[in-house]
């Protein structure tokens, strides 16, 4: 692997980290296709590196004090139980799945999430009554965009648990952060505002990734120089994404996420055919 390729991976990691920090989805969904389709790394290696970078993005967010009021750790840990179980199961069985099946799965998952995001552009999921009770798994935080305190309640937690189980399985199978499914699902179906969903997901996806990354590592699927380059890029990019995420409008974040997911979906579908 040449120094030029390492430099390209650092840059790709920075872009993925920025998008991951911005959208709370870890960045693996952008980096894994890039490492496999553009750099030419085997899919199992790209997935192993993707999981390690998800841990990197999550570490930055978890250490960042500004995101704490947004993070709903009680809800995040509850959903982490099925997510970790799914990730562990996936890491054990993924070695038996052919690449073509994974391509189709990747294309399908990203397309469905893109459609969900586009259909929810105007939905806010917030209560503008400061005295409203958030309930056991809801929360409250100050939102700079509207200049007021946001209170939200959670609904349909069993559905969120099922989505988290699938998200964990997809994370362990494709080497991406489970946030790609969890963020839209808990935003659209459970009533958690996008910023809170993204911040919570960004913290807990590192734990989801940690439920499968050691298995990839033990199999020799984490190519050390490429993984180091990707992680260093992600560490730089996710700080910028985190900073920008607090200032961008939720509508634009959703549109950006949907567009990127649609592009990833098409690229994997083409690869599968």
């Amino acid at each position, binding site marked *: 692997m040449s120094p030029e390729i390492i430099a390209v991976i650092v840059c790709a990691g920075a872009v993925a980290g920025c998008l991951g920090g911005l959208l709370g989805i870890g960045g693996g969904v952008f980096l894994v296709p890039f490492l496999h389709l553009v750099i030419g790394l085997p899919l199992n290696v790209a997935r192993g590196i993707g999981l390690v970078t998800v841990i*990197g993005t999550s*570490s930055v967010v978890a250490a960042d004090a500004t995101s704490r009021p947004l993070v709903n750790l009680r809800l995040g*840990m509850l959903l982490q139980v099925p997510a970790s179980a799914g990730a562990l199961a996936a890491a054990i069985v993924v070695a038996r799945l052919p690449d073509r099946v994974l391509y189709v799965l990747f294309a399908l998952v990203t397309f469905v999430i893109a459609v969900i995001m586009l259909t929810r552009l105007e939905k806010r999921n917030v209560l503008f009554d400061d005295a409203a009770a958030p309930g056991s798994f809801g929360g409250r935080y100050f939102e700079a965009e509207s200049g007021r305190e946001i209170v939200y309640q959670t609904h349909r937690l069993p559905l969120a648990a099922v989505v988290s189980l699938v998200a964990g399985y997809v994370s362990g199978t494709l080497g991406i952060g489970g946030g790609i499914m969890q963020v839209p699902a808990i935003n659209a179906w459970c009533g958690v505002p996008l910023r809170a969903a993204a911040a919570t997901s960004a913290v807990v996806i590192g734990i989801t*990734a*940690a439920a499968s990354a050691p298995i990839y*590592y033990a199999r020799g699927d984490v190519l050390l*120089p490429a993984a180091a380059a990707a992680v260093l890029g992600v560490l730089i990019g996710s700080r910028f994404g985190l900073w920008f995420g607090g200032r961008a409008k939720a509508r634009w974040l959703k549109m950006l996420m949907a567009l990127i997911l649609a592009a990833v979906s098409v690229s994997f579908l083409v690869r599968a055919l």
Partner: protein
Amino acid sequence: MTNEGALERVIRFVMVAVARVSAALLVVGLGWWLARPETVGALQTLEAGILLLMVVPLLRVLQSAARAVRLQDWLHVGTIAAVAALLAMTLLYASLL
């Protein structure tokens, strides 16, 4: 918003330190590997950096557990214990490969 307890503060400090040491090892290891790709020490440095990075989410779980116990939020303690058990199973399975 509940204040952070002493144990949580210590774990957070360790978590941030581990993440920073991991990043430093990755920078040093990558530079070393680019200069001398055949050196075993460079790969060992990179390996240490990646392994330390994987420890960070485990510390995050530990920090959450400390907070939940301090607040006597037993439902939260239960969910964290379940997550910890799943992570332990991952490490056990990986060690058998």
